[in-house]
């Protein structure tokens, strides 16, 4: 698996798109910092971008890579290599190179700008960790979609739909159900609903840092327990790990039963 990972990774970090992605974040980082002159504000703006854009790019990149490397995959399938190794290797190659573009692309401008001297360093690291998780999760989800759909167009459509659902539609339905059922105690429900969407989950993690004063304004005991203690952070991180592990597991399971 490590060999496949290595080749996929090399293949990707030499592709144009990785550079585009890397440069995009690099420029974004510099522009945000030099327009705002304020690391904290840049971190907040960045957060808004990351929780929307990183999943989108992870999804599209993942699905494109899978379909584009179909022949390569077939070449590998005829070699004496375990199937799951091939797919996990490719997956980790994509997710790894995307994560690297993200971390370096954003990290370099912020470090140059004096991140280490700023008190936003914790917020910023949290942002990068969240971005890395979102990349891993959405790349894995897109690989799952791709392996289940031979048809590229269909697969691509489903992937974009998945992103749209997670990034926008889910929250819309979530909000509507909260408003409709507002007579009932909803704090457990709303926390649970957050857990079932990795984008919401990442958002919650960041809210814990940036908006704790507002979150503590709500009366619910479950909320208080969740946001007021380390429980929120721990549970959110655990759920993110689960969200990463589950699609990877399914990918490995599915790959063993797939015809090529």
């Amino acid at each position, binding site marked *: 698996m490590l060999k496949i990972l290595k080749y996929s990774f090399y293949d990707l970090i030499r592709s144009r798109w990785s550079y585009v992605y890397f440069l995009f974040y690099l420029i974004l980082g510099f522009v945000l910092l030099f327009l705002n002159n304020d690391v904290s504000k840049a971190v907040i703006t960045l957060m808004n971008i990351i929780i929307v854009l990183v999943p989108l790019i992870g999804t599209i990149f993942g699905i494109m890579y899978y379909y584009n490397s179909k022949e390569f995959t077939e070449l590998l399938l*005829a070699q004496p*290599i375990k199937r799951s190794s091939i797919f996990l290797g490719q997956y980790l190659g994509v997710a790894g190179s995307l994560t690297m573009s993200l971390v370096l692309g954003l990290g370099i401008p912020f470090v140059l700008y004096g991140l280490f001297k700023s008190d936003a360093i914790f917020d910023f690291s949290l942002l990068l960790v969240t971005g890395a998780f979102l990349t891993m999760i959405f790349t894995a989800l897109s690989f799952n979609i791709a392996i289940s759909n031979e048809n590229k167009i269909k697969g691509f459509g489903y992937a974009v739909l998945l992103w749209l659902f997670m990034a926008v539609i889910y929250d819309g339905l979530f909000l509507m159900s909260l408003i409709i059922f507002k007579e009932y105690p909803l704090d457990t429900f709303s926390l649970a609903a957050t857990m079932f969407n990795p984008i919401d989950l990442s958002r919650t993690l960041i809210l814990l840092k940036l908006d704790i004063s507002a979150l503590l304004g709500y009366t619910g005991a479950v909320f208080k327990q969740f946001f007021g203690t380390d429980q929120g952070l721990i549970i959110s991180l655990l759920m993110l790990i689960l969200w990463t592990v589950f699609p990877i597991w399914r990918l490995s399971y599915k790959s063993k039963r797939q015809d090529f």
Partner: protein
Amino acid sequence: MIQIENLHKKFGKNEVLLGLDLNIEKDGIFAVLGPNGSGKTTLIKSILGMVIPNQGTILMDGIAIKKNWKYRQQIDYLPQIANFPGNLKVKELIRMIKDLRQMPSEEERLIALFKLEPFLDKKLSTLSGGTKQKVNIVLAFMFDCPLLILDEPTTGLDPASLIHLKELIQNEKKNGKTILITSHIMQFVAEVADTIVYLLEGKIYFKGSIDELMTKTQQTNLEHAIAAIATTHDNA
């Protein structure tokens, strides 16, 4: 070498293999023929483990290949469409496959034979179809494995390279290897094949030498013989 029993495979509602039995015990060159959609590629991919049969067993040297991957160390495969990761250079691709297989290889001789030296530092995405096929052939022939599977090996080759390919195949045969070929070029099949395996509607319709086939179909030409199988079957 390979024993296949009662192999079934369907893709969705499309049943491709319907209880196929095939026994390839001795060395030599086997041409797997059949009309489009008869299951040639499915059969080959089943042997390679790329397609997972719904039913039936495939034994390689007496060992079931299901949930096994190490047996592929015994197989060299030349895929039908030679499409490689475009970002890699030819050199790197060869190095990568060597790295993955960890076997002694003789790629230099093959590179010289097909005059690929000028392309070694080119990216695969910039190569022409024929050149890609040559790289494909190098990759398939550079290891010393007892079983060789060639899926449409002649695609895109110029006459000189075709001659080299035939020589290579004959050489491997002399070395005592088993070679499985699919091709639509009957002239090529007639030249190289010892045994014809003819697939029809998911089963082996005929297995035997070219002469036996001609006798059976009362034709003097392989191409016509093959065509005859198809028509007789249609009439029947």
